[in-house]
């Protein structure tokens, strides 16, 4: 069962049975990532927390309408973005509307090199490479890798073309690949020179 299926199941339990336990389960499942996403845009923990609460108030109030959502994760992120935009506009923080200004975290880089059978040195390089990705690129990478959003869903959420998402993903992977010396040899073979 994919995560979207799991969320759909919870949403329909909430809608049909008014089920508070399922509501709580859904909250627990999504709270962290929605808060991170809210924080990326709003840059305030308090506001991000309120944002998640606002999303779930909406969920409870509109629960009957939620059973027909095709991609619940995209729905949650889109709702988070829209509610965050409302806040920014009220506060006249218009610069923050641009995804280039959003500071997203990537959670799925292992802490111990043993987990992936790689050297500590390589893992440190990877961590650094992820941290140094441009904000929009990092955000796209996170949404695709950790939330399993499709390229077209990310494109829709961030108002980009699918081609841009594709290119940003390639940049992210290429930078990570560099930590593993992938380009050194081939670059030499092909006569390229590396920038770094």
């Amino acid at each position, binding site marked *: 069962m994919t995560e979207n299926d799991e969320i759909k199941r919870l949403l329909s339990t909430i809608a049909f049975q008014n089920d508070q*336990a399922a509501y709580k389960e859904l909250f627990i499942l999504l*709270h962290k990532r929605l808060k991170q996403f809210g924080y990326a845009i709003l840059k305030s923990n308090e506001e991000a927390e309120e944002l998640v*609460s606002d999303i779930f108030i909406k969920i409870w109030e509109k629960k009957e309408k939620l059973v027909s959502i095709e991609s619940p994760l995209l729905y949650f992120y889109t709702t988070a973005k829209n509610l965050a935009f409302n806040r920014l506009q009220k506060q006249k923080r218009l610069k923050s509307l641009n995804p280039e200004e959003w500071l997203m975290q990537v959670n799925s880089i292992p802490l111990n090199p043993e987990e992936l059978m790689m050297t500590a040195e390589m893992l440190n390089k990877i961590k650094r490479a992820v941290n140094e990705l441009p904000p929009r690129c990092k955000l796209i990478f996170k949404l695709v890798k950790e939330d399993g959003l499709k390229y077209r869903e990310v494109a829709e959420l961030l108002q980009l073309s699918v081609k841009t998402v594709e290119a940003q993903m390639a940049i992210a992977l*290429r930078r990570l690949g560099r930590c593993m010396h992938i380009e050194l040899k*081939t670059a030499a073979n092909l006569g390229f020179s590396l920038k770094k």
Partner: protein
Amino acid sequence: MGYQENFWVLFSKKLSNEATTDELKELENLIKDNSEWQYAIQNLEDLWKHQPAKDYSHEDDAYMLHIHRMKELGVPFGEMPDNQMPVKSKKKRMLWYSVAAAAMVIAGFFLFGSFSGKNKSNKNQIVREVNEISTRPGSKSRVELPDGSIVWLNAGSKLTYNKDFGKEKREVTLVGEGFFDVTKNKEKPFIISTASINIKVLGTVFNVKAYSEDKQTETSLLHGSIEVTIKSRPNDKIILSPSEKLIVENQITSVVTTGFKRTKENITRTAIPDISTLVSINKLTYNPDDSTVAEAQWINNKLIFRDETFSDLAVQMERWYNVNIEIKNEKVAQQRLNGTLETETITQALDALQETTPFRYEKTGNKVVIH
């Protein structure tokens, strides 16, 4: 597009499940021509698959704040979560999680203690009223107790507790198998009584298997610590440490018949205190592939058996599939088996068992006879 750029676009599409068949083929050819990429590709694929550890330890607090905020804003939500819904409506609810979600339940519900102890006291309540939740053979259920503790009831099991549960003490009785995730409350220990043992806990995660038709009562501890008292030896207290399993031989009355043919007659047991009880402490069975605990896998809809006799497995399969199994061949009954049943039907399961153990079976309706 350059050679390199093209590779990275295709490779990231492959990882994201966005690549078409043609693109996959193109990528394959690129890789074939550049075998030195292999190492990095492998590492990136591993990295891609790595998902963040599910840590939901802060979510409970956040949820409480959210409910509080909703209330302040006047959003109608019905009862508050520490005032549980009537158990009856939950009784029929089958709530089954994926493996990951189950892990979340185990990790996350540790902190549910924050909800406990604030039960609305209703002075007019009839004190001795009893709640009973039972599952039929072939079905399971998840129960949330008024203190926030979670109990998963396996097939053919029964959990009872008084209506005033949690007011002064937390006591339940169990017949059958339950996976307990008890919220911490040092003031009010959580006590589980089964036919042969009492278990006292302060807050932990463990599995109790106490079917009346089984030869043994098993207590498997995953986290924390619990104190077990055997009813026939009330002065001995056994403290279990994590990863330990306590097995208590149930007191068997009368003659144990052939030992493989199970009928209603030879499973009726009454407590005779002078028969000594056999007790042993063992280690839990970890699945080497993903270090899950075999004893608790039923909550993920898996029936795992490790070195069990066919006749013991048959009893579990009876509950699992809601069938009646009779083994007429003693040699087959004593055969030791290993395996996992998950989505198989009873027929598929029997067919699979036949591959390692030669036997014949007839199935008519809910009855299976094994020769």
